[in-house]
């Protein structure tokens, strides 16, 4: 009886993490990391997915994320708010004006004295320049516009500023990343730095880069924001979740963008 229990225990332990399973090739594409990075090479989350999921992202017609891109494109041309303006009224053709923009957020905001991300920038445009109501986080409108704007930077390497006024927020983001939290006592690094490429039950752990967001996740059956993913990760380690657009998540978004500096934006990516 005792022996059976022990064997059962060992089987359970072996079940938790298994290494380098088939499907994760050792010679996958990667880019060199930024100076001071703890990672030897940067690998996009795309490389950790199955060929079937990759095929969904590879073809712009099949990729369901493009339903959000098209929705955003329509909103771009639609006037809203008391000022009677659309995004297009000021920014013109998004293909030119938004090229590269999504790759450099979060940026420092003089007005608030802290970093703001692209969702917040879009809503600032709405409240200040269009005199319209801000869009709710994870609403189809904000996700559509986010996906559309980030899509204009597809292929552009992620490049955020972390110096000067951004430095304390970058440090706070790094601290958040390495802070163990929740009932499982895990930090972001426990999975995405120490164990990427390993299988966690049916999932394969990636390096946790943000270059594909907003991402179409098969689990979500839709497009979701990076902060939604943060909340999911925090919940999975049984930790308190922070709010959409909270300072904690904005700092983490900044730090995470730096960790993936040089990886091309893949929005709209498709993930498991």
């Amino acid at each position, binding site marked *: 009886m005792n022996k059976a229990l022990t064997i059962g225990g060992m089987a359970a332990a072996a079940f938790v993490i298994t290494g380098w399973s088939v499907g994760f090739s050792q010679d996958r594409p990667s880019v060199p990391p930024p100076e001071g990075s703890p990672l030897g090479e940067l690998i996009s989350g795309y490389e950790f997915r199955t060929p079937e999921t990759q095929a969904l992202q590879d073809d712009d017609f099949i990729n369901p994320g493009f*339903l959000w891109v098209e929705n955003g494109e329509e909103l771009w041309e639609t006037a809203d708010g008391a000022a009677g303006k659309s995004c297009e009224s000021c920014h013109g053709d998004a293909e030119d004006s938004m090229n590269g923009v999504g790759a450099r957020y979060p940026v420092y905001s003089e007005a608030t004295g802290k970093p703001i991300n692209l969702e917040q920038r879009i809503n600032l445009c709405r409240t200040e320049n269009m005199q319209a109501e801000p869009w709710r986080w994870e609403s189809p409108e904000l996700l559509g516009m986010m996906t559309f704007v980030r899509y204009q930077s597809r292929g552009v390497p992620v490049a955020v500023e972390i110096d000067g006024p951004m430095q304390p927020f970058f440090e706070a983001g790094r601290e958040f990343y390495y802070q163990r939290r929740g009932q499982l006592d895990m930090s972001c690094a426990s999975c995405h730095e120490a164990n990427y490429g390993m299988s966690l039950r049916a999932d394969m752990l990636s390096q946790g880069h943000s270059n594909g967001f907003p991402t179409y996740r098969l689990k979500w*059956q*839709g497009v979701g924001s990076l902060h939604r993913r943060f909340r999911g990760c925090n919940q999975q380690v049984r930790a308190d979740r922070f709010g959409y657009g909270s300072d904690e998540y904005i700092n983490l978004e900044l730090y995470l963008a730096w960790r993936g500096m040089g990886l091309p934006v893949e929005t709209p990516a498709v993930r498991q």
Partner: protein
Amino acid sequence: MAGVRPRVRVPKEAAKGEVVEIKTLISHQMESGQRRDSKGEIIPRQIINTFTCTFNGDEVFSADWHGAISANPYMQFFMTAEESGTFEFTWKDDDGSVYTETAELTVN
């Protein structure tokens, strides 16, 4: 249902006897009828239950869909091109809505 967006991709031209690939995607939440809202009430099922493709009025492909079909359903199938004509794609919603899309094929 509002905001449903069909997308269709077929080749514009084909040789006689060539097998052409037809791809369709439609945005739809495909609410299964199994989920509950925050109050514990069942969210009523609302899915696209029938998909049909006709070519010059003749049915070339059709499918009945049920509760386990994913959101934003994608369909891919093939047809042998014999003559020029028009594809008509139809998706029927549980709420009675019908979404349609057409595409032209020229056979040389």
